[in-house]
């Protein structure tokens, strides 16, 4: 029992840093403070619902200062009046019932909040508060202080009220209402015996049924008419044409029947059909509301930035108001929203959003800095060169590929089948009509309508929605989130897979660090570790985490020189950690200014103790677990290519890991990646692109299927068709297999539903279709198809 878990956040507690408060163990002061806040307000049952539900609050000093600006706040609010304001905040940490409980009891922590309501699937909390008592900034600070930091980006700006589309729910409700009541009222007709009372009220029942079918026919089914009309107009035969045709014929024939008193009509089957098809539609719409697949730069960019006015006063302004020539102040960890020129002496800029490269780049005064970079370290000042809309990164989005509409680009499998189905159906209907017309015109009319009714491809139309809906759910559970059902079809067709290197097949989280040079004694390592503790440079943090846990030393003096390294004095020893030049390594001066010099394509941190050069820690790219096996399996069925924005440093290493024949292409700019995919597509390939950063955004959009790998699915991913949690990367092959099996399932169930159609047609063409037969065949086929596809897709999912 060396390590214990923090009572608040559940992380392992480092023995030396353990804090015991109220007989509970905490890993850090932050967690303890949150517990204190909760226990002071008697809200400790936060910890009863879920074990260690919390998150460590991060330092947010100054991060939300823009909330002082009234005009920005008003853009974020959903509703605003003198004493009431409502705001919806996106909180990525929401993950369990404890989160819901604490966030819905905010009014006990802060006066002025009247109610708060959590929407769990969207990871949002809606807070109504009194702006006269409490400001939005205070609320945001409160949320951050208890570990629920809201994520506010440019995307939230100008959101206003977004209208939720609930029409499908309405349609489904109405269809069900009509269906249920008509079924009840139809019962007497099913068991029709020549009984006096039933005969007496037949007309009443029939006209009531007719009236009940109207809302279903005119409103619930309206989507199919519109879609059928559109597809005729664009001269593409989709599945909605026979459906709409079937429904209309159904209705006309049934109305005709009861007007002429021929029979009771098929209103029960008609409304049932509409209900089941809408149900299928509903089932297919599986949305991951908390994920956004349409992300562009707006979700990354801050909503406001600090501008330095001519009189040197600082002011928070919305980024859209930033103009050329303005001077901006960028704090530690803030994103640079526009292109500009650096005024401050030096800056460390982390372009990992843009390039996927985690190691920051050093810029000197006068250098150009591009939008999308994140400042690390000290506060910097910069002059604006372009406004937001004209910056390099935002320009990338004006490329045509971002306007693509998948639904129009690809034909779905159902539409392909209906391409043959519709003409054949019409042929059968007309030949049946042609045969009977010479015998009996009345029967001929009946046969014609019966064929169209029975063949109405409801089972066919239900197959794909239920299969894909189920697969979407299964994949979602395995942390592979697809944008919509069409992506499954595209996945099954893929024959070429292109991977991005940095951040996709390598991981930013762990770095593989090795030491080269003179042997460091334990005492020296101890010193290095303690000096690194004080530094916030990403390389320092990585190296700090890499070195074994040790006791603390008191530092006598410490100086961090931006762009060079750290100088510290411990006792009688002086130590330097940083770039080669800084650590007075005169033998091979590779790259003089970068913090970790680039040598042999790798980043390194050098160590100098008492003016004596010891050696260097080299940061190698760490490839994701299971990469080798994944590529081996994939290469059996797919062509694999690796694109990288990096230099060729890793080529030899990569080619030993990856299977032979894998094409490696280096030094690719974002536009070149896009072009590369385009060229492959022109050769007739179906390309799947797997990438991560914004630099892959173009390629992801151009490819047939763009998959974005994300370490944290809640926050960062460029626009794509699917988001894959990085921890599930090695399962990519099994996901692809599953999508192929989904298509097989659909084909099998198509065969099944065609069989049903044949049986129904044989009734119809001989003129024997009774309402009762129709009422049995319709639901029966629907139920068998739905259960068949659900069972099959689950079977494949468990089998992999």
């Amino acid at each position: 029992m060396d390590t214990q878990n923090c009572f608040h956040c559940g992380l392992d507690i480092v023995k030396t840093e353990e804090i015991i408060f109220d007989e509970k163990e905490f890993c850090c002061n932050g967690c303890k403070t949150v517990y204190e806040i909760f226990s002071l307000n008697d809200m400790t049952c936060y910890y009863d619902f879920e074990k260690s539900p919390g998150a460590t609050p991060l330092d947010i000093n100054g991060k939300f200062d823009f909330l002082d600006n009234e005009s920005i706040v008003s853009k974020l609010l959903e509703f605003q009046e003198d004493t009431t304001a409502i705001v919806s905040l996106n909180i990525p940490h929401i993950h369990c019932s404890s989160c819901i409980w604490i966030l819905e009891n905010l009014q006990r922590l802060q006066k002025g909040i009247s109610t708060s309501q959590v929407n769990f699937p969207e990871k949002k909390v809606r807070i109504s508060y009194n702006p006269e008592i409490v400001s939005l900034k205070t609320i945001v600070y409160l949320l951050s202080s208890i570990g629920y930091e809201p994520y506010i980006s440019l995307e939230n700006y100008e959101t206003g009220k977004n209208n939720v589309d609930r029409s499908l729910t309405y349609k489904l409700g109405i269809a069900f209402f009509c269906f249920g009541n008509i079924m009840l009222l139809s019962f007497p007709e099913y068991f029709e015996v020549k009984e006096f009372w039933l005969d007496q009220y037949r007309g009443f029942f029939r006209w009531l049924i007719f009236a009940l079918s109207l809302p279903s026919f005119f409103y619930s089914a309206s989507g199919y008419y519109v879609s059928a009309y559109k597809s005729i107009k664009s001269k593409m035969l989709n599945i909605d044409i026979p459906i709409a045709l079937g429904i209309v014929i159904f209705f006309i024939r049934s109305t005709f029947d009861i007007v002429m008193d021929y029979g009771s009509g098929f209103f029960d089957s008609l409304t049932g059909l509409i209900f089941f098809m809408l149900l299928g539609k509903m089932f297919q719409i599986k949305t991951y509301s908390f994920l956004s697949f349409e992300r562009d730069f707006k979700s990354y960019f801050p909503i406001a930035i600090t501008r330095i006015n001519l009189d040197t006063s600082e002011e928070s302004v919305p980024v859209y108001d930033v103009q050329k020539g303005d001077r901006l102040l960028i704090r530690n960890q803030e994103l640079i929203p526009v292109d500009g020129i650096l005024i401050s002496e030096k800056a460390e800029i982390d372009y990992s959003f843009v390039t996927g490269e985690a190691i920051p780049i050093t810029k000197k005064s006068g250098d150009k800095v591009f939008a999308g970079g994140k400042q690390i370290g000290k506060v910097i000042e910069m002059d604006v060169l372009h406004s937001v809309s004209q910056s390099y990164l935002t320009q990338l989005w004006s490329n045509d590929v971002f306007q693509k509409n998948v639904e129009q680009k690809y034909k779905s499998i159902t539409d392909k089948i209906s391409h043959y189905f519709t003409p054949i159906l019409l042929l059968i209907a007309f030949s049946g009509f042609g045969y009977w017309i010479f015998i009996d015109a009345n029967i001929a009319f009946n046969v014609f309508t019966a064929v169209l009714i029975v063949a109405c491809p409801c089972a066919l139309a239900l197959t794909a929605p239920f299969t894909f809906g189920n697969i979407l759910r299964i994949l979602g559970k395995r942390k592979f989130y697809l944008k919509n059902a069409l992506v499954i079809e595209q996945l099954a067709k893929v024959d070429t897979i292109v991977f991005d290197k940095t951040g996709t097949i390598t991981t930013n989280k762990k770095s593989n660090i090795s030491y080269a040079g003179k042997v460091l004694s334990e005492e020296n390592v101890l010193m290095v570790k303690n000096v690194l503790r004080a530094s916030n440079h990403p390389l320092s943090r990585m190296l700090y985490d890499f070195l074994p846990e040790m006791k603390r030393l008191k530092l006598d003096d410490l100086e961090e020189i931006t762009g060079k390294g750290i100088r510290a004095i411990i006792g009688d020893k002086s130590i330097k950690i940083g770039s080669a030049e800084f650590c007075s390594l005169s033998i091979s001066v590779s790259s003089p200014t970068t913090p970790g010099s680039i040598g042999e394509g790798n980043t390194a941190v050098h160590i100098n103790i008492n003016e004596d050069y010891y050696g260097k820690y080299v940061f190698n790219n760490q490839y994701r677990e299971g990469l080798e096996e994944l590529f081996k399996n994939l290469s059996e069925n797919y062509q694999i290519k690796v694109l990288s924005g990096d230099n060729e440093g890793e080529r030899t290493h990569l080619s030993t890991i990856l299977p032979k024949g894998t094409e490696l292409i280096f030094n690719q700019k974002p536009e070149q990646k896009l072009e590369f995919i385009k060229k492959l597509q022109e050769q007739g390939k179906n390309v799947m692109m797997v990438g991560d950063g914004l630099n892959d955004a173009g390629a992801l959009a151009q490819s047939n299927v763009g998959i974005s790998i994300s370490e944290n699915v809640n926050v960062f991913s460029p626009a794509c068709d699917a988001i894959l949690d990085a921890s599930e990367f090695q399962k990519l092959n099994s996901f692809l297999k599953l999508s192929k099996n989904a298509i097989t399932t659909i084909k099998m169930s198509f065969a099944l539903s065609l069989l049903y159609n044949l049986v129904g047609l044989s009734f119809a063409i001989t003129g024997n279709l009774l309402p009762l037969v129709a009422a049995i065949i319709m639901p029966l086929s629907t139920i068998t198809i739905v259960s068949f596809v659900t069972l099959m897709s689950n079977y494949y999912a468990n089998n992999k």
Partner: protein
Amino acid sequence: MSVIYLLISISILVAIGFFIAFIRAVKTGQYDDDYTPSVRMLFDDEIIQSKVEKSKVENSTTL
């Protein structure tokens, strides 16, 4: 036997009543989030329990 007109009309009216209730529920957004309420309804007991705790704390300390 014309009572059947009455009975059927009543049954339809009841059904329409429920139907209107459904439309209202959708309109007010009750179907937008179908997960959170299922968790929320389990909370009531805990809040009462913590209120008891609160009174205890208030007794023991002078808050």
